[in-house]
């Protein structure tokens, strides 16, 4: 009913190949973008920008990066946080050391630096696979954090290793207010998400998926393994690097190497597992789930315990929150092992037939 495609004829290859072949989807995504770009900046409060929307978008981008590598190219990685750290520190250094460097160029260079480091740590993927590769990428995680702590040059000789980023300026305008930073992040994330969506539909993406599904077969049909795998590492790290730069510049304002710990890598991995491995939409849903649910529980549970007059103090509520969060992750994984994106897809199928299922 809602997704009735009757009457939507495709008369050209271009029409058949577009990102959203169904008209309802096109309208939906246009409305969503309009909402995010126009309505949200008008109505959201500072709390929403600073604590919810900006981190959500940044982590979506990082999850998207990991999803390209793990979900599409099938290379398990535990180094996403390290690549974010490279991006954050690289952007900081470009910004501080090069006078008058435009911020967007810094972000792109940060992404490229991160891509370079990603290729380096992707090299083992040519020989090892699966869990063994995950362990190899752990090396990136520890090495990069160690490196950032070890060499004071990288943090511009800050006595504590913490970098505090300079303000953002674009075209002579100061990007300072929360809604301005939100729009900057949203713009970058929307662009990169569009690029990712197109990439996975292109030759590159198909080569990744072929490698993921069976690399020997992929090699037999003429896909160059080395190039494909390293490209996946490079692009994935580019996304993580840009996310890291945004994390430092638009969200926290000050970062330390320890902030990019293995915990953060796991968090990003959980985002794509919960959201949906091998799905662009899944990266966003997963980021929302992992990031926003704890905040929601944090606000909701004390309210609930006050309402029901339960004798819980702050610490107990915090413990219960962790338990509920863990239980919910398990619940969703049992109900739908393929992630929230799959749930959405099933919902869409159902809506297509509704109200007359077979």
């Amino acid at each position, binding site marked *: 009913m809602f997704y009735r495609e009757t009457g939507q004829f495709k008369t050209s290859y271009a029409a058949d190949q577009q990102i959203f072949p169904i008209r309802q989807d096109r309208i939906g995504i246009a409305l969503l973008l309009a909402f995010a770009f126009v309505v949200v900046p008008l109505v959201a409060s500072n709390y929403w920008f600073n604590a919810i929307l900006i981190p959500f978008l940044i982590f979506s981008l990082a999850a998207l990066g990991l999803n390209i590598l793990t979900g599409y190219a099938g290379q398990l990685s535990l180094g996403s946080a390290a690549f974010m750290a490279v991006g954050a520190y690289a952007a900081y250094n470009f910004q501080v050391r090069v006078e008058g460097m435009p911020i967007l160029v810094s972000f792109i260079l940060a992404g490229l630096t991160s891509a370079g480091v990603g290729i380096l740590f992707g090299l083992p993927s040519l020989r090892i696979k699966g869990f063994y590769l995950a362990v190899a990428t752990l090396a990136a995680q520890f090495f990069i954090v160690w490196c950032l702590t070890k060499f004071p040059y990288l943090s511009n000789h800050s*006595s*504590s*290793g913490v970098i505090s980023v300079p*303000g953002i300026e674009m075209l002579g305008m100061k990007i300072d207010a929360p809604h301005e930073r939100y729009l900057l992040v949203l713009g970058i994330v929307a662009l990169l998400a569009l690029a990712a969506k197109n990439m996975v539909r292109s030759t590159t993406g198909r080569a990744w998926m072929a490698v993921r599904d069976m690399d020997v077969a992929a090699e037999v049909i003429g896909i160059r393994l080395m190039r494909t795998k390293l490209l996946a590492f490079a692009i994935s790290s580019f996304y993580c690097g840009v996310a890291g730069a945004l994390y430092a510049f638009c969200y926290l*304002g000050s970062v330390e190497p320890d902030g990019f710990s293995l915990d953060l890598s796991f968090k990003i991995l959980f985002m794509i597992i919960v959201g949906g491995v091998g799905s662009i939409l899944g990266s966003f849903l997963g980021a929302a789930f992992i990031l926003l649910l704890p905040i929601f529980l944090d606000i909701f549970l004390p309210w609930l315990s006050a309402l029901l007059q339960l004798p819980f103090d702050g*610490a107990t509520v915090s413990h219960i929150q962790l338990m509920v969060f863990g239980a919910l992750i398990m619940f969703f994984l049992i109900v739908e092992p393929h992630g929230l994106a799959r749930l959405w897809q099933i919902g869409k199928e159902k809506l297509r037939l509704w109200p007359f299922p077979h």
Partner: protein
Amino acid sequence: MIAGFKKLVVASSIAAALLTAATPAAQAAEEQFFMLPSYRVGPYGANGQAFYGGFIDYLNYINMKGGIDGVQATWEECETEYNNAKGVECYERMKSKALKAPGPIHTMSTGISYALVDKAATDKLPLAMMGYGLTSAVDGSVFPWAFPLVTTYQMQASAIVKFLKDKSGGSLEGKKIVFLYHDSAYGKEPILALEAEARLNKYSLVQIPVAHPGNEQGAQWQRIRQEQPDYVIMWGWGVMNMTAIKTAQKMGYPREKMIGSWWAGSEEDTVPAGDAAKGYMSATWNVAGKGVPLIADIEKTVYGAGKGNLQDKAKIGTILYNRGVSAAVLSIEAIRTAQAKYGKGKAMGAEQVRWGLENLNLTEARLKALGATGLLPEVKTSCDNHEGSGKVKMQQWDGAKWVSLTDWIEGNKALVHPLFKADAAKYAKEKGITPRDCSKEK
């Protein structure tokens, strides 16, 4: 029956009249809001419980004693788990409530306070970092809204060196000191000061980092055994402290030669280490125990009324509990200072509280009046000096409790404060901040 009913009506209307008469007064009672980005779970949960327990107990105590000159203290907690991103979220969530009449914000986390320094300055909210955080904020001309009160890592390191110097007969020349530190912002902060002291006092400094969380230190202590240092200065936190003390025992390094920072000198560090901790020393800017009249009075008044925050009463009088109380004492005194200038009995706005923090003068006489003699050193802040004291005591664990070894020791201000100035100037340049002229502040 009807007469009875009438009586009831009259009585209740009188009661209602009384109530309505009372209500405006109750509404007019002003409130000062403390946002508490606290942590009670996670790796450092035990430390957070004691600190914020002490803080809240003192606020309750003040409220029971008639408030801050009639102004009631209110507060809200938000769990940060010692995680920077969560800390920022908590800050943003509670910010709107705090804008009107905030108390100084205490995060008890260097990472979170780093993330909040800029945000708090933009939002114009006073941020206190008592004994942690961005130490160059001592220079109030660049950081009007941040207050590393009482003392800083660098001043503490310098005071420890002074103490060791006295201990070894007035000179450290030719001695070897190992600096064992938590490899994070917190642990690296004092390195500059220790290096400067090493040049001045001609001792050799060996730096050994411990990766977070520090529950495995075999390699580090192997190295210490090789180096055979005269002293080990330790900048540890959480589980790292207990592990270090235990490993030192295993490796046969005398604990009497180990001295920790004030985050490495609480009951949470020594009790789990058991026998190994006996003789271990640490710096502190507040004393432990219930010997301070104020702490005893809090236990009697607040816990007597069943309003205590701690479930585990054994924590009362521990180092971190007393530190929470000291933090609350300083916060309340800053508000009182502001009230003296801007109006008694009124809740203070952010700018007024900031002024109070900047013009704090907590004298020995005032501490005595509060019943807090010896709990913390005298504190006198100014625009130039947001630290206000720079003094610490040394204490030693006797196997059951912390015993003070010394009176208040001041670090080498002439050596350390210029480091802050230089760092603050660099910060100002990077961020494009024009420093205030402190000579024009009053």
